[in-house]
């Protein structure tokens, strides 16, 4: 019931343009994540949707109605801030019921509403505490509760987990996912953490320099990045990029010459690339294999990062490029060893000189399904 539509949205400060024309459709009940490097405009965009920043030009529609000039509290949105922004002199209950108090709801009623929400978020024992007596995770939950009380059409989250420690972040991520599952409202979430983006989102919007680089489901972004930026931004560690020369173009694939004479055939459709052109080959660390029997490239191991379950090798190959190779935790490689890296063309991405991706001949088999949340612990959020 709650859609958000952006039509050619611009944000201009006196002499800099932060947002350079964004079109976006956010469907009902969708969990949309804005992701991008610092300064890409993702927070500004969220604050423009919230009404905290003016929109320089373009239209913002909520449920089909233009709301550019509607004040923040009348847009039917609620926002959770990075620093939680709880009112320090009010108790948890007062914090959550503050919007109702401003709306003139009688005390009894608003405290009841706060209690209902507290039950959903398991905050009941804390209702009479002040924010400074709470832990980071509890404060975060109160901030979510304060948003929940208003029964918003759309939830906005501005990097809500970045002030939490790593363990708590994972836990709150799960809780947010099941909250979305049980509330079934539209949520817009800003983060720079791609793990949050990948795990939470139905739809990821990758922003850079005030423009949308790509919109798609997490797996779409992972398997079919539209350009070099998205390819490098999604995935950790970063995708490896090699400069290559096109040596043959067929209907079934394009063959490229790697540094050091080896060649790889990548199953992409014929495109603007022709034989002799320079192009960029991209392959993720997890798709590279060490294989002494069929080496595509050889190089020297510079650094070995052992995470226990997996090991990252930084391999310098002929021509001076460094490849990151993900292997299992039992890999015996050591620094200064020779590494034999096998590249499977099926996993490679090819980008033309403009950094645009060249379409593959077939889609990834998971790509036609919708992205399902893997969590099923919705019990805790159901009202008794």
């Amino acid at each position, binding site marked *: 019931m709650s859609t958000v539509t952006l039509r050619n949205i611009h944000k201009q400060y006196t002499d800099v343009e932060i947002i350079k024309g964004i079109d976006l459709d956010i469907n009902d009940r969708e969990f949309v994540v804005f992701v991008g490097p610092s300064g890409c405009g993702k927070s500004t965009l969220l*604050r423009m949707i*919230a*009404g*905290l920043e003016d929109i320089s030009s373009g239209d913002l529609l909520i449920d089909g109605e233009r709301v550019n000039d509607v*004040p*923040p*509290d*009348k847009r039917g*949105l*609620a*926002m959770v*801030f*990075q*620093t939680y*922004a*709880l*009112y*320090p*002199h009010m108790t948890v209950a007062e914090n959550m019921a*503050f*919007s109702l108090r*401003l*709306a003139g709801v009688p005390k009894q009623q608003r405290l009841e509403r706060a209690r209902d929400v507290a039950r959903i978020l398991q905050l009941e024992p804390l209702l009479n505490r*002040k924010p400074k007596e709470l832990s980071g995770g509890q404060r975060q939950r109160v901030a979510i509760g*304060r948003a929940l009380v*208003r029964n918003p059409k759309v939830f906005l989250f501005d990097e809500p987990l970045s002030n939490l420690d790593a363990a708590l972040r994972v836990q709150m991520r799960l809780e947010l996912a099941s909250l979305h599952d049980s509330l079934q409202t539209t949520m817009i979430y800003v983060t720079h953490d791609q793990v949050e983006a990948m795990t939470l989102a139905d739809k990821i919007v990758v922003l850079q320099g005030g423009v949308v680089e790509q919109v798609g489901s997490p797996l779409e972004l992972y398997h079919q990045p539209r350009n070099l930026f998205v390819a490098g931004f999604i995935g950790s560690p970063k995708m490896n990029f090699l400069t290559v020369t096109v040596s043959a173009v067929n209907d079934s694939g394009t063959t490229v010459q790697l540094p050091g004479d080896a060649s790889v055939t990548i199953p992409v459709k014929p495109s603007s690339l022709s034989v002799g052109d320079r192009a960029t080959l991209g392959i993720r660390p997890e798709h590279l294999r060490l294989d002494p029997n069929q080496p595509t490239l050889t190089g020297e191991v510079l650094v070995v990062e052992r995470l226990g379950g997996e090991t990252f090798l930084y391999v310098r190959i002929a021509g001076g490029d460094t490849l990151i190779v993900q292997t299992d935790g039992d890999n015996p490689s050591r620094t200064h060893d020779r590494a034999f890296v096998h590249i499977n063309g099926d996993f490679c991405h090819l980008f033309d000189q403009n950094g645009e991706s060249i379409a593959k001949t077939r889609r990834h088999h998971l790509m036609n399904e919708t992205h399902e949340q893997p969590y099923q612990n919705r019990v805790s959020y159901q009202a008794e």
Partner: protein
Amino acid sequence: MSSSLAVDRHPETRPPEQRTRRQVSTLPLVAPSVIALLLWMIVPLAMTIGFSFQRYNLLNPDAREFIGLGNFTFILSDPGFWISIGITIILVVSVLVITIGLGTLLAILFDQEFPGQGIARVLAISPFFVMPTVSALIWKNMLMHPVNGLIAQITRGLGLGAIDWFANLPLLAIIIIVSWEWLPFALLILLTAIQSLDHEQIEAARMDGAKPIALFRFVMLPHLSRAIAVVAMIETIFFLTIFAEIFVTTGGGPGLATTNLAYYIFLKALLEFDVGGASAGGLIAVILANIVAIFLMRSVARNLDT
């Protein structure tokens, strides 16, 4: 007044053994300043206490004798003393209300972005740097003078006639002068306090539907309460001893209309040459100031806790 600062709000919590060792090592270093301060404070206080029990008039210094509580009973039964206490309270409370009320509003205004902000802030704070005597003279001769004063000229230009401030509204005139001097102080402290308010809190309140007045009432004012308490405490301590402004402008008059406690003691000591009576009045003032200070410290301390 200084004795109020001796209220111990931080009792030692370290084990005794450690505490003594620490004291031994630092005592020689702090001793000189402690001794100097003690002499500075104790000697005048002791002399004042001594004088307050004596009949001691400078017009007749040979007739000095011990009279017990005579000076105190005389002072406490003097209607002028009670009038001066009333004047002191009116003066302190009204200047506090004006400086904190206007100071809060101005702090919010000066927190906004506007061209010439830096210069405006310096100008707004500058009255604090003018010494009381000078500012009282400026107000007396250039602003509030019934013939030459700027205010009189303006009101006369509007056909409203002129007010002789120091004859007809003497206490109000003093209150205006002192408020003008101390408004910058309140503004300065409250402005820094407002600037420390988390911007996201204001945005959260806006999302919750707070209009400017609700924003001020529910978010800004609670945030400022601590700074307001500090301003009130510091200002009270200074306002209890206002003297120069009164001395320069009204001289405590007409009658006793602007005689506060400090000025009352001055009248006793230096116009009636009654050292004994002035000392007794001074002691009563010290006791009263300490009572006020203790209450203020308590409320501020409670404020700092929450």
